[in-house]
Structure formats: C-alpha cells, structure tokens
C-alpha cells in the first residue's frame, strides 16, 4: 500500500505534475491573496476599503512621482522619505554593531562582565519599541537623534547576545592546540576565533538590521516629522486606506528585497567554509531559550560536558 501511494505522483504526467509541484503553489499564493482581497472588497461594509487596482495605481503614482502629493518642503516624495529612513537606520545600525560587539566580546570572555550586563541586556531586548518611541519623542523632539537612538536600542541586544554566544561556542581544543604549537595570538584570532564567530556575527547583523528597521518606523510615527514611518502614519491620519496599504506594500517589498538580494547572498559567502548552518539557526532562537540549551547538550558528547564543567571552575578571565 505504502509504495503505491509514494509512487503515484511520479507516474502522473504533464499537467497534474506541474500543478502538484511546490513552485506552482508558491506562484499561486499572490493570486490567492488577490482573490481574498476581492472577496473582502465586495463583502465588507467599509466605504474606504480600496480595490487592488486603486492601490496599485497609487503605488505607481508614488513611484513615478506623478501623484502630485508633496509631503513637505524638505522631503517631497517617496524617495526622499525612504532615503531619510535608510540613513537613520544605517547610522544606528553601525553604532549598535560596534558597541554591541564590544560588550558581547566582554561578556563572552569574562564571566564578571556577563553577570554584570546579562539581566539588563535581556530587559532592553524585551522592551517594546513603542516605549522608546514615546520617551525619545518627548526627550529629543523631532530630529534625527531620536530615531537613531531607537535603532541602537532595538538592535544592540541582538548583537550582544549573538557575539557572546559566538565566543562561547569557539572550540576550546583548537585554542589549546594552537597554544601547544606556539601559534602567535594574532594568527589564532584570525584563523580560529573570527571564522567560528562569523555565523553568529552574521545572525547578529541580520537581526539587528531587521529589528532596527521595525523600531525605527514606530519611532518615526511618534517622534519624527519625516521618514517612512511618518509617511504611513500620514496616510492613516488622512484616513486613506489605499495610501496605508500602498505604503505597507512598499515596506513588504523593501524587506523582501533586503532578504533576497542582500542577506541571502551574504549568508552564502559567510558560510562558505562550513557546510551547514544549524548553529546560526540556534543562535537566532536563543534569547534565553530552552531549545538551544537542549540542542547544545544533545550535540556535545557526554564526557565533553563533564570536561567543560570542570573547566568552568577556573576563572576564564584570570
């Protein structure tokens, strides 16, 4: 019985096989969304709910600058708003990356630093971006500093946690061996520490960027007079659903493009030296999570755990 079932799709030819392939399903998805959209459009009792054509038309006019809408004297159009948001995001992101790496390295190397920072890193990690947005808006007004600080605050915990995790996961025996063979320190850093940190560092970049973006747009709603977040709020306040949905789609397109065009190729490069990336997936999920600890215990041999434990007794920073 079982063999018949599993072989059936192979025997099918032509149309059925194409229809049953996952790729077809993936292509079908946007059409399904359109169908649901039309269904809501014709059933919902809302005068402002737009049809897909209206939204597409709006987006086209925004992209080609033919809508005749000016958002302000300084930044007039979609591209100006976008450029401002990207600038804020990039500055905040690099500051978060540098500061986070320093703190993360310190926490990975010294247990004292780890104990000192750990709870506060977790607290910042769990704080909603909304809180930063409201507070920074009142404190710093509508300038650039507020949104940039929001990006830093949103992104830095991810950098810290991933870098710390990376330092901790560096194979100790490699260090011992390098030490035994008298390899100079800078070579050890270059060939042992950095490559094994790489996947974690990469996860940090990816997440800090994505979370920074999310924090940024919320802050721009409450503490800015320009930028992408402000613009979508502009259409919300104007009560124009086609504007809100159109800009929401711009956000989605931007995020997807970033994933597919920037981070996926970068990931391929960063992991060229190792065949699998399970470790990164683990670090992504590790925000004090149980799953990763389980993973670690599963992966390491039983006697390795014992030897690690006995090593923990010695102060690593001493």
């Amino acid at each position, binding site marked *: *019985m*079982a063999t018949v079932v599993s072989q059936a799709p192979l025997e099918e030819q032509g149309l059925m096989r194409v229809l*049953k*392939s*996952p*790729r077809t*399903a*993936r292509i*079908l*998805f*946007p059409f399904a969304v359109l169908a649901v959209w039309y269904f809501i459009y014709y059933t*919902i009792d*809302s005068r*402002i*709910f737009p049809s897909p054509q209206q939204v597409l038309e709006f987006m086209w006019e925004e992209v080609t600058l033919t809508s005749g809408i000016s958002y302000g004297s300084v930044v007039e159009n979609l591209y100006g708003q976008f450029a401002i948001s990207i600038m804020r995001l990039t500055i905040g992101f690099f500051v978060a990356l540098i500061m986070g790496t320093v703190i993360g390295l310190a926490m990975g190397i010294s*247990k004292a*630093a*780890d*104990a*000192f920072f*750990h*709870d506060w890193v977790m*607290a910042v990690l*769990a704080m*909603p*971006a*909304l*809180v930063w947005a*409201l*507070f920074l808006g*009142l*404190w710093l007004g509508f300038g650039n500093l507020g949104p940039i600080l929001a990006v830093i605050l949103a992104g830095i915990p991810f950098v810290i946690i991933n870098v710390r995790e990376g330092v901790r996961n560096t194979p100790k025996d490699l260090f011992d061996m390098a030490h035994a063979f008298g390899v100079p320190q800078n070579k050890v850093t270059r060939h042992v520490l950095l490559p094994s940190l790489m996947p974690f560092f990469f996860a940090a970049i990816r997440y800090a960027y*994505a979370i920074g973006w*999310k924090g940024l*747009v*919320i802050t721009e709603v409450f503490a800015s007079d320009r930028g992408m*977040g402000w613009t*979508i709020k502009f259409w*919300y306040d104007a009560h*124009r*659903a086609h504007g*809100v*949905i159109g800009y*929401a789609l711009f*956000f*989605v397109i931007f*995020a*997807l493009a970033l994933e597919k065009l920037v981070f996926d190729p970068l990931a391929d490069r960063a992991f060229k030296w190792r065949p699998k990336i399970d470790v990164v997936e683990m670090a992504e*999920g590790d*925000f004090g999570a*149980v*799953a990763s600890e*389980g993973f670690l*215990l599963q992966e390491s041999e*039983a*006697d390795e755990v*014992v030897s690690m434990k006995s090593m*923990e*007794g010695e*102060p690593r920073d001493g």
Partner: protein
Amino acid sequence: MATTLEQPAPGARSAEEERLLALQKRDTRRKWFWRIAGYVVVLGVWEIASGTILNENLLPGPIRIIETFPDLIESGRFFSSFAATLTRIGIGFGLSFVIGILLGIFTQSRWVEGFFKDAVTISLVSPGLIWALTGLVIWGFEPQGWIFAIVMTTFALVTVNVAEGIRALPKDLIDMSRAFGVTNTRRQREIVIPFLAPFIFTALRFGFSVGWKVTVLTEVFSSNEGIGFEMRVASQLFRMDEFFTWVLSFFIFALFLEKVVLQRYERKFFRWRAEVAS
C-alpha cells in the same frame, strides 16, 4: 568517562570533587556579586540622571516610579487596564497560535509549504506597525482590526517553530507506523503531536513575547482602555512617572509570564524528556 566504572559510594567525595565544588561555590558567589553590582550601577545612574542630566519630570527616577505605583492602583484603572490588554492578547494571540500550529502541521505537505512560504517570510520581516495601521484603517475600532494585526505579526513565528519540529520528526517511527498500517489520525496524535510539543512551547513563548508588544501598539491607535492606551495618555499629558509605571508594571508582568510561568510549566511538562527539560 572511565571513572564511571569505579564509582565511589554515594555520599563520599574525593578530594578532586571537593576542590571542584569549592571552585563552583566561589564562582557562584562572584557571579552574584557582579550581578548585583550591575543592578546597583544601572539603577544608581538612572536615579542620579533624573534631575541632573534630564529633567526630573521627563525621566523620573526608580524611587519615584515605585512611589507612583500605589497611586495607580488606587485610581482603579490599573486592573481594568490589565484585564483589557490581556483579553486582547488572549483573543488575538490565541487565534494566531491556532492558525500558526495548523499551518505548521500542514507544511508536512510540500505543496502547502510552497504556498505559504512567502506569507511566512513577509510576516517575519515586516514591522508590526504596518499591520496595525492597515487593520485599523480598514476595520476601524472593531475587533477585526487588531485581531488582524496580531495574527499577521505572530502566526509566522509559531509556524516556523512547528515546521522546524516537523523537519526533525523521527522518520523511522513514522515509517514503521506506516509499515504497520497505523492510520494517519492516530499517527498524528501519537507520534507527531507528542514530538512537536516542545517546539510548540517554544513557539508559544516567542509568539507571546512579540504578541504583547504589537497588542500594546494597537491599543495606542485604536482603544480607549488597556495598557497601550494608558501609556499614550500619560505621555501626551507629560505624566512621565505614570508612563514609566505603566510600562514597568506590564513589562515585569509579561516577563514573569514568559520566563517564569511558561518556562516552569514547560519544564514540568517535559520532565520525561531530559534533553528538553535541561
């Protein structure tokens, strides 16, 4: 591991173990010292910064926030706000959780996986703000608006975790059940779901940690009660002491739920599986 062969009698400790234990004890003591130092430094800087670097009304110190707490409880809005927000989370995230698990289980089929692949990516990478505003501009203050926002932001987290579990399913058990002609429903109930349970718990915790934030965000835009609403009112009236008290009380409550209650429950639930309970 050769030592396991000649285990000493329980109770008797060798000198080596004695030494390790002492080291461990010293380590714990040192860890707690630095941990407390961290609290003292951060809270101290905060307390000193309030009134010197920043205006005391803009950044009230921790002491003033604690003093505001009883006033908030006396005002009577405290528990009703908590109840309103928790109801929203319960309805919104509850629905999202069910949808996420169903989708995750259905991704056992490659076709369904392909179909929802982009939906999951979009939900993971786009900010909760756009779902909140989209839902609210379409449905206004009606519940569909915020339900839409919460579901769109959190279902993918649940789906991804459940799908991860499915990928790790013990294939040999499933093959064996197939070979012995076990029905599909029974296979799902007795192999798939028990195996997935830890992944579902992880999904619950991650989903909740994102879910309560987007819930609060929707309350800012479209509610006249709840924590988010109170936060917005307090910041608009420039009552920052009240603002921080709302933030911290709900923050601590959410962390408590997430880290203590769920984690403890998870541990109790999975005592039979050592590597999960860790």
